[in-house]
């Protein structure tokens, strides 16, 4: 057993036995990365003359210190958990769904379209809209998936490019056909039918049943990936596509399946945002769920169920971020800096080994 020094790549982690050891191993890197990120943001906060403690206190206060805060956190957790699951499913098949945001956008369009063009009873309407959004997202993911499967085109670039295309198409359609005439400043569609609105059950803010859907999707997806035959084949395709193919697995079909499921979940996010939070299609409604999804997936360490705590963690950051801006005048962009540096650090595999080595040297053999 040896670490490959010249070509890089993670050396096999020492086998961990026991639940606690395994849990520690999976949380190690995200924890270190978060601390490193916090270090950077602390330095930056100090550089602009504010107190880091005030900032972090505001963060926690904004996220958890009030009913509104908790509602905010849960509101953000809903799409973030799903986004993390969507990205992770792609990862399992060895694919990067970098264009998640495009699928979200189209899902938002179709979801709101279904919201104001058709007529259905109150229980059914939101469900249909969300599923319809999912289908749109799945379809939008099908394009890069097919290009990757049959032509070897990088799904990272194609899905990312299609993000801009999705924005173009959606904005155009809304501007041409579905524009809300009363709004001159923003580009948004007419409101969806009242029956289509996803109602909030929280006393304050906007937390809908979608939260439970997200959590349920995470659990079900995790279970399917681990225990079902399809899940096994997807995982093996991601682990070593050549080996999977040689073993007779239909790798092409599994790649497409995983990517489309990822897109489907993304579409659901967009639809839920549109009929739940905004109650219409709003241009640029997506505040960066694509990136956030990646961060959640990274923090979850490739574990689908782990997207639940990871999503909640990121939701805390987001909810707290608005509070920071509101009360302290520190730009929300500092949260993005935090997110970016966490991603940078958590992706550095060898850092884990080096830190472990550091600990071993300290505590002796």
């Amino acid at each position, binding site marked *: 057993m040896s670490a490959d020094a010249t070509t890089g790549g993670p050396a096999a982690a020492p086998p961990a036995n026991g639940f606690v050891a395994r849990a520690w191993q999976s949380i190690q890197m995200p924890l270190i990365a978060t601390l490193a990120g916090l270090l950077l943001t602390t330095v930056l906060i100090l550089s602009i003359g504010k107190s880091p403690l005030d900032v972090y206190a505001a963060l926690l206060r904004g996220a958890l210190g009030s009913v509104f805060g908790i509602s905010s956190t849960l509101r953000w957790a809903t799409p973030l958990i799903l986004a993390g699951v969507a990205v992770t499913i792609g990862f399992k098949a060895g694919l990067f769904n970098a264009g998640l945001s495009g699928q979200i956008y189209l899902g938002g369009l179709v979801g709101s379209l279904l919201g104001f063009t058709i007529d259905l009873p109150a229980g059914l309407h939101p469900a249909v809209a969300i599923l319809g959004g999912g289908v749109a997202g799945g379809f939008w993911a099908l394009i890069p998936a097919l290009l990757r499967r049959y032509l*070897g085109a990088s799904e990272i670039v194609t899905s990312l490019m299609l993000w801009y295309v999705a924005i173009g198409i959606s904005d155009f359609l809304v501007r041409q056909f579905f524009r809300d005439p009363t709004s001159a400043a923003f580009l948004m569609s007419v409101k969806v039918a009242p029956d289509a609105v996803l109602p909030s059950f929280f006393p304050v803010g906007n937390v809908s049943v979608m939260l439970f859907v997200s959590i349920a999707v995470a659990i079900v997806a995790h279970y399917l990936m681990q225990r079902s035959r399809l899940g096994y084949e997807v995982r093996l395709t991601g682990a070593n596509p050549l080996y999977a193919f040689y073993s007779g697995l239909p*790798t092409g079909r599994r790649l497409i399946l995983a990517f489309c499921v990822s897109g489907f979940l993304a579409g659901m996010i967009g639809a839920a945002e549109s009929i739940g939070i905004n109650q219409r299609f709003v241009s640029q409604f997506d505040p960066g769920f694509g990136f956030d999804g990646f961060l959640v997936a990274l923090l979850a360490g490739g574990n689908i169920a782990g997207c639940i705590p990871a999503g909640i963690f990121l939701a805390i950051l987001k909810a707290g971020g608005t509070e920071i801006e509101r009360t302290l005048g520190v730009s929300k962009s500092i949260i993005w800096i935090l997110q970016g540096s966490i991603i940078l650090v958590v992706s550095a*595999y060898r850092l884990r080994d080096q830190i472990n080595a550091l600990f071993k040297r300290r505590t002796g053999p």
Partner: protein
Amino acid sequence: MDILTLSLFSSTLVVATPLILAAMGGMFSHQVGVFNFTLEGVMLFGSFFSVAFTILTGNIWLGILLAGLACIVLSAMWSWVVVDMGADPIISALGFMLLAQGGTIFLLNAMLGQTGGAFSPLQLDFIRLPFIDGLPVLGPLLSGHTILTYLSWLTLPLFVFILYGTPFGLALRAVGEKPEAAAAAGINVRLMRYCAIAITAFCCALAGAQLSLGLLGMYTDNMTAGRGIIAFAAVVFGRHRPLQVFLVALFFGFAAALTDRLQGFGLPSELLNTLPYLLPVIVLALSGWRLLSRRNGMQAPPPL
């Protein structure tokens, strides 16, 4: 419809400049075997810093130079994570992009006290080439561009020379082709990778400078709008062949210029705006098709 006018080709050269600079720079990273997806993030930093430092120093050349250095330093963070710490280049590049988006907003506020954007007091001059300016067709086409545009043309012969005519270039190519062989020959693989990424960063900084200082005279949040990703697509398609990367980047610039031109004809702007992004998708699909026809019977799903 007279679309194919001289001014279209002239504006192609202008629009393509940041794409060419970033793509040719990105080619260096490709040469050493690094999958450098940070072009977008670095370009954004470059467009910001060139305006910021111009404002702070009052000198446009110093501004651009400092921007280049700042981008090299920031990119070195990514280099360390990928080269020394074995990070996945794509994930870490996405992290870098986030860092760039957040960092530029933050620094705009912290360094200049502004939000949303900043105006630059100075702008790059449009240079009139002495002899060519008077010529009938070539004049309006080739003369009157910023120095960065002329620099972008220079990258082709310069980079070809560096890569194939110098020992440095030989070492770079060796590292990209087979790092073990390069290491066995005494080449410092790690240093070469850092160098190549630094060159990429400097070129992307220049690309960003062209956007802010060359075209608009200002910086606005997220002004790169995916240009770095398009430049990256040019590198993916052209691989390590300088001429090919150059031409693809130029072609993408043409598409963007065409889009701008078509807007004047009343076609919906949102749809037109998707063209520069659709093009790389088509190009990648075609390049995959070409590779496919050469595969001669192998069955497995085509690798990247």
